[in-house]
């Protein structure tokens, strides 16, 4: 069991990177606690798989160090880092039975056969694979095969961290939740550190204690799902998380307050010193969940009402700017539509970042 420390890790796939864009992973300095469940969340190409492969040892970072506990493992090969990895599509050894698949990493490390058998039985019990131990691995369904992949990782007693690279990609939608719950259950029972890469926010938010949101090779925010939802540090986070995403409204700052559509808007964070430094792009961020119809609010024109099942999504327009809000069942759209923003969850952003915070 160990905590993982990433010390100024950066990576470029090019031999001699020059520009910012040449770096697939921009400098990251982060620490992950022992036994935590982390999700690396971000769109395709944001560098999450690169980061994962660096932690597991499949990739050597261009610069920086990785430490497991006190050990510098930057140059250690994957099979000696005590990690396990589950890939996007099930990786099983087709010619072997389920039992032999699970036994494979143990036998490679020279474990005694009797011990191997005992350990395989334990893992199979944990993953509900006992009934199929004798069958050829290739005959299982996709989720069965992913369990085998997982099992091979769990089989080794010395594993500290399990990495998951979008493991539910090929699983049937109606089985995804089952595998996901299994992972959560395993985490609670065994207490290993788990790092889960995904582009699906639902998976990330339900699985992880802490979510690391990444964008274009950089870590944008690390926080609990609630923190990410209520207080995004970057407009990207606001926009990426939540469905529909956060409203981003261009605004201006005058006399120490944000102004939108000719009115002052109260925000949770003070505009602060950022504005004093001569401007920058100012924007208001507020989630549709925190926008309401208010009699004394900003006048808007309602353009569309879409039904999303348990609630409705209203698209309105203040001048040229679209704003979305949620309407519960039974609530009606007033004739003279005016919107108010909950000041506790309305934030001012400057150049994309939350105003008043040190960036990165």
């Amino acid at each position, binding site marked *: 069991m160990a905590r993982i420390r990433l010390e100024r890790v950066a990576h470029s796939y090019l031999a001699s990177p020059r520009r910012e864009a040449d770096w697939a992973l921009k400098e990251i300095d982060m620490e992950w606690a022992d036994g935590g469940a982390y999700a690396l969340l971000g769109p395709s190409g944001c560098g999450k798989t690169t980061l994962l492969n660096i932690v597991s040892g499949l990739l050597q970072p261009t610069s920086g160090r990785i430490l497991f506990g006190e050990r510098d493992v930057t140059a250690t090969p994957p099979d000696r880092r005590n990690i396990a990895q589950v890939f996007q*599509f099930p990786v099983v050894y087709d010619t072997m039975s389920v039992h032999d698949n699970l036994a494979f990493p143990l036998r490679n490390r020279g474990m005694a056969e009797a011990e191997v058998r005992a350990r395989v039985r334990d893992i199979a019990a944990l993953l509900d694979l006992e009934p199929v131990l004798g069958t050829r691995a290739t005959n299982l369904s996709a989720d069965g095969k992913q369990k085998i992949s997982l099992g091979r990782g769990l089989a080794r007693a010395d594993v500290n961290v399990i990495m998951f690279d979008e493991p539910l990609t090929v699983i049937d939608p109606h089985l995804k939740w089952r595998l996901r719950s299994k992972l959560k259950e395993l985490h609670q029972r065994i207490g290993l550190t788990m790092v889960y890469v995904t582009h699906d926010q639902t998976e990330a938010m339900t699985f992880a204690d802490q979510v690391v949101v990444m964008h274009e090779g950089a870590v944008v925010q690390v926080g609990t799902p609630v923190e990410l939802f209520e207080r995004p540090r970057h407009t990207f986070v606001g926009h990426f998380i939540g469905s529909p995403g956060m409203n981003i409204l261009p605004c201006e700052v005058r006399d120490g307050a944000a102004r939108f559509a000719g009115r002052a808007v109260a925000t949770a964070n003070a505009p602060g010193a950022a504005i004093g430094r001569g401007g920058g792009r100012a924007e208001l961020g507020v989630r549709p969940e925190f926008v309401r119809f208010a009699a004394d609010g900003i006048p808007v024109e309602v353009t569309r009402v879409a039904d999303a099942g348990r609630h409705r999504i209203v698209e309105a327009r203040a001048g040229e700017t679209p704003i979305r809000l949620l309407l519960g069942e039974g609530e009606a759209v007033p004739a003279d539509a005016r919107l108010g923003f909950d000041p506790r969850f309305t934030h001012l952003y400057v150049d994309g970042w939350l105003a008043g915070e040190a960036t990165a």
Partner: protein
Amino acid sequence: MSARVVNNRAWWLVLPVVILVGFNAVIPLMTVVNYSVQETFGNNRFLFEGVKWFSDVMHSARFHDALKRQLLFTAIILAIEVPLGVAIALAMPRRGAWASACLVLMSMPLLIPWNVVGSMWNILALPDLGLLGWTLNSLGINYNYTRQPFAAWATIIAMDVWHWTSLVALLSYAGLSAIPPAYYQAAKIDGASSWAIFRYVQLPKMRRVLTIAVLLRFMDSFNIYTEPFVLTGGGPGNATTLLSIDLVKVALGQFDLGPAGAMSLIYFLIILLLSWLFYRVMTSGEEDS
């Protein structure tokens, strides 16, 4: 191949192919069948002989010898070319300029006219004038492929290995390239040795490709004519007279239409059986995907 529409008008699309191939396949075969059951007298007079030619051929020592030689030849070259081709594919670089250069150079033997392959090895193996022949003889090995059956065999085998191993290597290379990197990564994490990776990841994933390679080489070597004919002419004596060479001798050389016909049909039937095997393997793979 799911969701294919049943449409018998598709026959119109296939018709040109059927006509073209049918013309070339059916008419000659009919001729062959004709010859195989008749006795031909010079002036186009025919006498029905039933299965006489078939029984003659099946009992002839000449045919048996040619068949045995052919089977031996095919077995030897398969035993050499398949492992060698796979080993080369495993050792080749996967990407980059070297990979490209490798592929180009390896493909060259495959595009040389077969008679030139024969001539090339002819010139190479000349006992006193050729690079190979001269080298072997000056090393003290008494080598003369025109006079020694063993030397002739060794030379035609070396020639075939030179000629066709690249096919196996290229097919295997394509199969290997199709293996997703995740398998190698997982094996690395599992602490697998190189041998284990070969046995449990690479070989199983190459099963289909290897089957194609083996069957292709089996059949093409079973049909081989030009290269050994140009090199040894079937000799010394009969030593390297493989099945096709023997058949052509009988058909075009001696113009023994009856025996040629019977032999052709027997030969063809053997091949047909093997193609059926080939076809089954190919389509079984598709039903899984």
